[in-house]
């Protein structure tokens, strides 16, 4: 009998720069997406800054990785969410979010889906396991 596909959620709660957690956490997502698992990614708290478009790390002297988020859908990571409250209290709107791929049918650019904390809680309750970065 085929194993049931497990739901695995990643939460991104730290700012993208200042530590390596978010960058190395992205590497985990890209690898895990190649396996048979139902992957979702939720950006919340300072993690929402990782999705800000127009990031430039040149002055930091480090390799930026925001461009890789633009290919999330190419890596078969379709379920990408942002916590509305975390975004709003940081003065960000949906317009600030970078594009994570394009719709297969319409070829329209796709942004992460902005959802409420309650919806995130409900999704968390359904997960087999959650990894936080």
């Amino acid at each position, binding site marked *: 009998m085929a194993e049931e596909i*497990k739901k*695995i959620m990643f939460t991104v709660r730290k700012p993208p720069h200042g530590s390596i*957690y978010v960058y*190395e956490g992205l*590497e*985990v997502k890209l*690898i895990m997406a190649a396996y048979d*698992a139902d992957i979702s990614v939720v950006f919340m708290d300072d993690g929402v800054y990782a999705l800000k478009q127009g990031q430039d790390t040149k002055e930091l002297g480090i390799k930026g990785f925001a461009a890789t988020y633009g290919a999330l859908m190419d890596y078969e990571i379709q379920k990408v969410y942002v916590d509305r409250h975390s975004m709003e209290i940081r003065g960000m709107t949906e317009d600030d979010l970078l594009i994570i791929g394009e719709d297969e049918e319409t070829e329209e650019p796709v942004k992460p889906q902005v959802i409420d904390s309650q919806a995130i809680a409900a999704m968390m309750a359904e997960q087999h*396991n959650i990894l*936080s970065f």
Partner: protein
Amino acid sequence: MKIAVCIYEGPYNHEASDSAYNFIKAAIDKGHEIQGIFFYHDGVYNVTKLMEPPQDDRHIANRWSALGATGIDIVVCIAAAKRRGIVDDVLVPNVRISGLGQLTMMTIQADRMVVFGD
């Protein structure tokens, strides 16, 4: 219950390694099975034999090695290790370097993935 553990922080600098170790010992005592232990981020520094702490302190790498000797699979992420100069030659016995696929399998197969770190 099958439990997997992932450790994000380096030894001594942060309590994550100690907490994870104590958690694992307690879980085993309660009859749980440890699916595997995965070191990521600076966690890869936990299992280098080059560490030489003062003699009256705990030896974190040897402690992990002893746990590995009981048959628990202890894996160091190769990508995180290479970035930080951790290679096979500097590892204590009973741990191995492998890829993030191992973390994936632990996450899928374990009933619980418990993460220690900031």
